[in-house]
C-alpha cells in the first residue's frame, strides 16, 4: 500500500529526497523507481527526468524500464491497484470471468481508475501462486481460488 505524500510537499521534493537516498549506489535506478512508485502511486515524467539527470543516463532508458515493469505506472493510480493474473494457469481456471466481473462491478476497463479514485484495474503476469488460480492482487494482498460471485466480498474489504 502506498504512503500518502506529506501535506505541502511537492512531487519534486519527494523525488529529490528519494534520489538523494540512493545516489551513488550501483544499480540505483530500480530502487529509485520503486520508492517513487510507493510514494506517489505512479511515476510522473518529471520524476523520470530527474532520475535520468541524477544518474546521467538517457531519459529513454528510464522510460523504457518504467514501461517494461507492470509494477510501475506512468499514470496516477487509485488507492488500491487490482492486478489480475493473466498467465496460463489462471487463464485455464477462469481469470477471464474474474476480470469481467471486476470490470462490471467497478465500471472500468483494464488500465483505468475508478472515478472515486479507489481502484485501478490492471493485468499482471504470473504472481507465483498458481496453486490457488485464478488469483489477483489488491494492493499487496493476494486473493486466490476466485469465482465471479466472490468479487463483491473481496472489494468490500478495501475502503
Amino acid at each position, binding site marked *: 500500500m502506498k504512503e500518502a505524500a506529506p501535506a505541502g510537499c511537492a512531487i519534486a521534493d519527494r523525488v529529490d529526497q528519494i534520489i538523494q537516498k540512493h545516489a551513488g549506489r550501483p544499480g540505483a535506478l530500480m530502487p529509485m523507481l520503486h520508492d517513487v512508485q510507493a510514494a506517489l502511486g505512479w511515476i510522473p*515524467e518529471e520524476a*523520470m*527526468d530527474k532520475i535520468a539527470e541524477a544518474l546521467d*543516463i*538517457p*531519459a*529513454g*532508458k*528510464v*522510460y*523504457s524500464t518504467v*514501461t*517494461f515493469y*507492470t509494477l510501475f505506472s506512468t499514470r496516477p493510480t487509485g488507492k488500491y491497484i487490482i492486478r489480475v493474473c493473466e498467465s496460463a494457469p489462471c487463464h485455464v481456471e477462469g481469470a477471464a470471468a474474474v476480470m469481467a466481473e471486476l470490470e462490471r462491478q467497478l465500471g472500468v476497463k483494464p488500465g483505468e481508475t475508478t472515478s472515486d479514485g479507489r481502484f485501478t484495474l490492471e493485468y499482471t503476469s504470473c504472481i507465483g501462486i498458481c496453486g490457488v488460480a485464478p488469483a489477483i492482487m489488491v494492493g499487496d494482498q493476494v486473493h486466490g481460488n476466485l469465482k465471479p460471485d466472490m468479487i463483491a466480498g473481496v472489494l468490500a474489504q478495501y475502503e
Partner: protein
Amino acid sequence: MGMVTLTIDGQKVTVPEGTTILDAARRADINIPTLCFLEGLNNPGSCRVCVVEVKGARNLVASCVSPVGKDMEVTTNSAAVRAARRTTLELILSDHPYECLTCVRNLNCELQALAENMGIRNVRFEGERSKHEPDNSSPSIVRDNEKCIVCRRCVAACEKLQGLKVIAPLERGFDTVIAPPFGVDLMHADCTFCGQCVLACPTGALHEKDDTGRVWEALADPKKHVVVQTAPATRVAVGEALGMAPGSVVTGKMVAALRRLGFDKVFDTDFTADLTILEEGHELLQRLTKGGTLPMITSCSPGWIKYIEHQFPTLLEHLSTCKSPQQMFGALAKTYYAEKAGVDPADIYVVSIMPCTAKKFEAARDEMDSSGHQDVDVVLTTRELGRMIREAGIDFANLPEEDYDAPFGITTGAGVIFGATGGVMEAALRTVYEVVTGKTLENVNLTSVRGMEGIREASVDLGSVTVKVAVAHTLGNAKKVLEMIAKGEADWHFVEVMSCPGGCLGGGGQPIPTNDEVRKARAAGIYSADERSTIRKSHENPAVQALYKEFLGEPLGHKSHELLHTHYVPRGKYRDI
C-alpha cells in the same frame, strides 16, 4: 590465449578460446544466418535465427552468444536447425507487412533476404498484427514501426555509438515498440538525426525522409536553375548503391550521372570545404592570438551540432561559428554565383547530395537563409541519389568520367578528406601551418590525426606556438571530450568532432550495409582521392582565392560573417524543443 579445436559441419576448426560459434564458423567460411546480431554492437541472442545444433546440448543454441568448447561438434544446417529457423522467421513474418515491392528497402532488406534464403513460401501462422502510424515528424528520418521486428539494433547503435537512447524499447511482450520516451515524436526528442539507427535497421522500419520527388519536380521545371553539390564522402560510396565494390572512387561518374539527370550545374562541396578551412583556420588563429574560447571545436557535422545544443548547451561557445560546407555553399550559390551567372537567386534551386540524414534538418534550420532565400533547398542522401540514377536507367558503371563545373567545382585534396574522421583537422593544419610559419609544409600527410581510434590527439609545432589538437568521432566519444573540457582537464586548442563512426564516410545517409570493413574501404578511397589531387592545401585553391578577391574580401570579413558564419540554439531534451 589458448586455442580450441572443434568440429563444425564435419570440418575441424581451431580458434582462440572465447570465440563464439558464429565467429568460428565464419572463419571457416561457413555462413550462419543472423538477424538481431550486429557486429560489435548487438548480440542479445534473442531472435534465434542463428541457432545451431551442438552434440550433447539439450536445446539448439544461439551461435552468436555461445562460445566454442573443446571437441564441440556443431551442425549448422541439420533438419532441426532449419525447421527452428523457419518457424522463427514465419513467426516474425506473421506480424510484418507484405509490402516488399513498395518498400524503401526492397532488395536491400535482411528479413527479405532471410526469407528468400530459407525458402519461405508460406507463413503458417495467423495472429494479431501490430498497428502503428508512421512518424514523419522530422525532416530527416521516418520511423515506420509496422515494419519493426524489435531486434533492437537501432537502440544499440544509438546507445553504444552515440551514448544516447533517443529510441528505446517501450512496454513489453507483443506490445513492445521502439520509440522515443514519453510518447513524443522524433522531432520532439533529443534526436541528432545522425541516422546510425537507419544503417543498423535490417528492414524498412527506419529510413531517410525521401526527397527525390521534390528534386525530380525541380529538374522538370524550366524556370528553375538547378545546381547540385556533392559532399566529399559521397564519391566513395554512391557506387555501392549501384552495384560497385565498397570504397570505389566514382567522382567523375557521379558528375556525369548528375548531368544526365538534368542538373544545370554540377558543383562540389569540397570547394566550400576548402573555404571552411580558410574561415575556420583564421577563426582559430584569432582565438589563439586575440583571446577567445578554447578549445575551438569544429561545426561541420550537423548531428554533432544538434547533440551539443541538446546535451551541453553551456558549451556552445566552443563551437566554431563557421557554417558547415553544405550551408556555405547554399549561401554562396544564391549570392556570388547568382551574380556571376546572371541568374535571379529566386530561380536558383540548390540540391545537396550528402552522406547524411542530419543535413536535411540542417538545411531546414530557420537561420539558414542568409542569402535572402532558403540557402539549400533539398538534401538527398547518397542512397536517394543512387535511387534516382537507377530510376533514370543510367548505366552508372559504364559512364565516362566528367569534371565538375567552375567555379565551385575547383577543389583540393584538403577538401576531399573532410569525408574521413580527422580530415577537417588535417586540412586545417595544412593551412594553419603555412599561414603561421610562412614555410611550406613538405609532407602534407599528417597521419597522426588519421585512423579509426575513437579519440586521437596530436600536437603541431608552429614555431611560436605548439598547437594541441584532438579528433573524436561518434557522439559517445564527443561526450568524453566535452566532459573533459567542462572539467577543465583538456589542454587542446582545436578539436574536430564528427557524429558518425569513421566520419562522414560512415554517415547515416550512406549505402547499406555500412560496417567496419566498408568504412575502411571508403576511407582508403578518400585518401587516394587526396593523393591524386594536384592541389592539396585549401589556401592554394585558385577558385577560393578568386572568391575572396572578387566577393568576400578577406577571411572573417564583413561578407563572410553575413554569409558563412552562424549561431547556435540551446535546446531542451524533450517536449520543449
